[in-house]
Structure formats: C-alpha cells, structure tokens
C-alpha cells in the first residue's frame, strides 16, 4: 500500500517536471512553471521520506536526514535570496555542482555496498553516475571561480589531447572494474574518482570566462545524466525521468545558447576565438578615423534630443553602472527627452544579462525594446548612446561575410541621427573583432569607464 502510494507520488513528480519545463519555456507561464516543478519535487521528496520501504531492513536515521535537509534548505534559500542579480549564474553553477557532488557521493556509498555482489549492470550505473557527477562537480566549481573572477583561463599546449587521454584512461579503468576481480577494484575506483575530478577541472579551465554560461548549461545536462544513472540504479522512475529530461533539455539548451551567439558548441569548447586569446591577439586591426566627443557636447546633444535610445552591453555590467544609467535616464526625462533601452538578446555574458542588470536598477520593463522593435525605432531616434556594447552593434554581422559574427542579428544603431559610443578604449569586445561602426560619420566616441562617464553626464545634464 505504502509503496503503491509512493509510486503515484513519483508519477506526479515526473509529470510535474514535464509540465514545469514546458511552462518554463514560455515567458507568460515561466514563473508558474517553476513552482509546478517545485511542487512535484516536494511531493517526490516527502513521499520518499515517509513512504519508502527499504528491502529487508527498516528506514533508519530520520534525524540525520531531516537535519541535513534543514541545513541544506537554510543555506540554499538564504544564499539564493541574498545573491546579487548579476551573480546568479555563479549561483546556478554552484548549485549544479552540488547536484553532481550528491550523485558522486551516492555512487561512492553504493559502490561500497555492491562491491560484494557482482551485479554487472548496477556497477555500470554506479560508475557512470560517479564519473559524470564528479566531472560536473569539479567543472562547475571551476566555472564558478571563473565567473566570479577568482580563476583565470589556463591552458597548456596540447591540452585537448591530454584531456582526451585522461578520458580514455577513465573509461579503461572503468572497464577493468566491470570485467576484473573484486579485490583491487576499490583502489581502481578511487583512481577513477580522482581522474574524473581532474578531468572536470581540465575540461573547463581552458574555456574563456565569457563562455561559462554555455559550459554551465552543458554541465547541467551532465548532472541530469548522473541523476538518471542513480535512477537506473534504484529503479526509481522520478529520478530517471527527471534526470533524462534535464539531460536532453540541457543539451538542446546548450546548443540553442551557442546558436544565439552564432557559434557552434565545438567552437565554444575548443575556443577558436573569444576569451583570453582574442583580447591579446586581435587587439588593434586596421583602423579608420574616429571622432571623439566631449562630455559636455554629449550631454548637450542628449538633453536637447527628442528621443534617446540607450544600448547597454557587457561594459555596463563590468562597470556596475546600471544604477547610474537609470539616474541619467531620469535626468534626461526631466528635460522632456523620451528615453528607451534597446536590449540585444546576447548582450552581456549570459542570456537575459541586460534584463537582469536593468531590473536590478529598477528600470521599467516597458522601456525595454527587444531586437526587432528596436531596429524599427532607431530610425526615429536622435541619439543612440552605447554603453559598453560592441559586438551586438557591429555592422559586420550584416555586411561582411568573412566576419566570424556574420549572420548574427544585431542592433542597427547606425540608422539613428547621432551615435555616441562609450567604452574605455578602441579594444574589441568578446568576439575579438574590429567594429566599423566606430568609424562611421555619425558616430563619435566617448572614452572612459561607463560609471564615471555616466556620472559626469548626469552632472552636465543637470547644469543645462
């Protein structure tokens, strides 16, 4: 009876995951979708806690389990509540790593239990869960480090070959455990554990920090698969379906993220451009002539404009200038200027980065233009102010077939009467390529850190 009800709890859990994911992929229902999944998760977890009957023995250690859950809930809820909007990807990376760690720990315990008997295929599930879980754990920790700026890109020559060798050794040792005798297997298991953790580190270390959202999505998919392995092991359908769903959805999502940046997954993982390499390599290309504009001129032009469109980019996030930007918007409005924001879907370093950033500064959602409406409005704008954006306003995406970003939809800022570009130098952005926009007759540069520049603009505007 108890087991029957538990089965139904699991069924409900699985269905709620499917419906939740479905709802999550539509802006209108996304938030409720998340709650649906959460409710299903709750049913599955509490079902297990109260209804699970171990074969043979009874259910022990309630105290420890509940204690651990309380600790986990407190830490999880508080850190998730406190984290700054812009640090959310880091948070996701950590939580993903925790899932991987959990899978690895389960596999370790189960390996100790099952090593006695030789249930081939169960050992396979355990090994797979351990390896994938460990890779995901170690990789996520590195990704977290990179996002938070604590770890820099590292790569040594031939690292890709080396990584492949490590992977090969892991598989080899795994086969040894499955086929070999049981005496030494515990040591081999330990070896695999260490190698898997190292692989996770080696896998993520050389990838550019800016590509971390893609990597996290991939590791997310890995953790899903590790979860499914554990589901297989326990013949537990909710773990199985949940894990596989996340595994396949995560894989597709990874590909979609790459597509949104007009890159391939291989390109991200092996890194033909972007990150460290680009910053050093393609720094200064052939240049035309660009115009500079003074702070006071810029303030003047904007204060007397009818319509100003602000294009935020990665630089705004770096400078943490979202609040100052909102200030400028308000002073301009006081002068009767219509101000809007044009949001490119891959501006910044994670999808929705700009939305998150501006929401943090309380910019009204109604003032945000998406790509297509924005491109329709630029023509009627007097001034476009670009704050630390570069690739997403690069005309090469439309007119230079040899450009690596060719084909990516961009914000057609050049349609506006005047374009003012704020950045610190003439250095390229994420894609490491030059931007002809800067040299067009209606463009002018306004050098400096976004926050400083904005602050000074505000002062100037107020003085007018």
């Amino acid at each position, binding site marked *: 009876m108890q087991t029957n009800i538990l089965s139904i709890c699991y069924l409900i859990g699985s269905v709620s995951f499917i419906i939740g*994911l479905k709802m*999550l*992929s*539509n*802006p209108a229902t*996304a*938030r409720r*979708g*998340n709650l649906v*999944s959460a409710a299903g998760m709750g049913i*599955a*977890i509490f079902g297990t*806690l109260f209804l699970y009957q*171990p074969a043979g023995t009874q259910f*022990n*250690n309630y105290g*420890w*389990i509940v204690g*651990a859950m309380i600790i*986990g809930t407190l830490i*999880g809820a508080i*850190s*998730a509540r406190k984290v700054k909007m812009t640090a959310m990807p880091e*948070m*996701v990376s950590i*939580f*993903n790593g*925790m*899932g991987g760690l*959990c*899978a690895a*720990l*389960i596999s370790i*315990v189960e390996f*100790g239990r099952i090593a006695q008997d030789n249930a081939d295929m169960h050992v396979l599930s355990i090994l797979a869960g351990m390896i994938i879980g460990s890779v995901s754990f170690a990789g996520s920790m590195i990704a977290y480090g990179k996002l938070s700026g604590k770890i820099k890109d590292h790569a040594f020559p031939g690292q890709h070959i080396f990584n492949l060798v490590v992977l090969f050794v892991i598989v080899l040792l795994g086969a040894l455990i499955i086929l070999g005798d049981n005496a030494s297997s515990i040591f081999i298991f330990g070896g695999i554990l260490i190698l898997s953790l190292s692989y996770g580190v080696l896998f993520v270390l050389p990838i550019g920090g800016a590509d971390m*959202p893609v990597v996290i999505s991939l590791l997310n998919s890995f953790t899903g698969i590790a979860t499914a392995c*554990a589901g*297989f092991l326990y013949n537990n*359908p909710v*773990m*199985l379906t949940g*894990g*596989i*769903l*996340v595994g*396949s*959805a*995560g*894989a597709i*999502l990874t590909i979609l*993220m790459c597509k*949104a940046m007009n890159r391939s997954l291989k390109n991200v993982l092996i890194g033909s451009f972007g990150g460290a390499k680009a910053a050093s390599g393609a720094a200064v290309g052939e240049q035309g002539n660009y115009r500079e504009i003074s702070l006071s001129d810029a303030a003047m032009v904007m204060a007397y404009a009818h319509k100003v469109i602000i294009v935020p980019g990665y630089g705004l996030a770096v400078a943490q200038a979202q609040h100052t930007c909102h200030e400028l918007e308000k002073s301009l409005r006081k002068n009767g200027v219509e101000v809007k924001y044009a949001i490119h*879907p891959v501006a910044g370093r*994670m*999808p*929705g980065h700009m939305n*998150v950033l501006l*929401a943090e500064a309380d910019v009204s*959602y109604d003032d945000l233009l*998406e790509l297509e409406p924005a491109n329709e409005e630029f023509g009627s704008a007097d001034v476009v102010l670009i704050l630390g954006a570069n690739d997403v306003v690069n005309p090469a995406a439309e007119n230079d077939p040899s450009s690596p970003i060719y084909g990516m939809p961009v914000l057609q800022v050049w349609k506006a009467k005047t374009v003012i570009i704020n950045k610190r130098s003439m250095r390229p952005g994420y894609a490491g390529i030059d931007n002809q926009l800067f040299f067009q007759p209606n463009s002018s540069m306004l050098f400096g850190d976004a926050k400083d520049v904005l602050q000074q603009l505000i002062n100037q505007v107020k003085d007018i």
Partner: protein
Amino acid sequence: MQTLLDFIQNNIELFYVVILSVFLGIEVISRVPSVLHTPLMSGANAIHGVIIIGSIIVMGEASPDNYLVLTLGFIAVIVGTLNVVGGFVVTDRMLEMFKTGKKGASKQIKEN
C-alpha cells in the same frame, strides 16, 4: 553481448522511459526565446536536484552505526537539498523580473 541483451530485455520498459524522455526533453525546449535561456537553465538545474531522493535512500538504508556511510550520506543530503532549494529559489527570483513584462511576453508568445 548476451549479458547486454539480457539487461536490455529485463529493463526494457526503463529503456522506453529513457528514450521517450529524451525526445520529450528536446521537444519541450526547442522553441524557447533566448531571454529565457538563463532561467530555463536554472530551472532545469533545480529539477536534477531530484538526485536528493537517492541520498535519502542511502541514508535510510544505512545502519545507524556505519559512520562512514552516514557521513557521506549526510553530506549528500545537504548538497542535494542545496541543489533543490537553491535552484528553485534562484529561478524564481530570476523570473520575478519578467513579471511586468507584459509587452515583451505577449510578443514572444505569439512567436511560438
């Protein structure tokens, strides 16, 4: 080979569940607007926190004097809970920001 075939045979329904889930995961996600990529990743991340059930089972089946297993299981339950609770809460916070996005939202609905 024979072992593998037997294994598949004995777990054939699980294989169906796996394959159907793979297709379902792909289908469900494949038309998501890019502004939802990050929340979706985060939501999916919370879902694989269902791994915590495994750690609860490990703990529940461990004998109360097996301290090694208890310690490992204890940690596993903590990190599993972290994954679940943290994941859902972070996702909810991300999505909170879209709540006023009637304009943008309705536009993207039409696109689907």
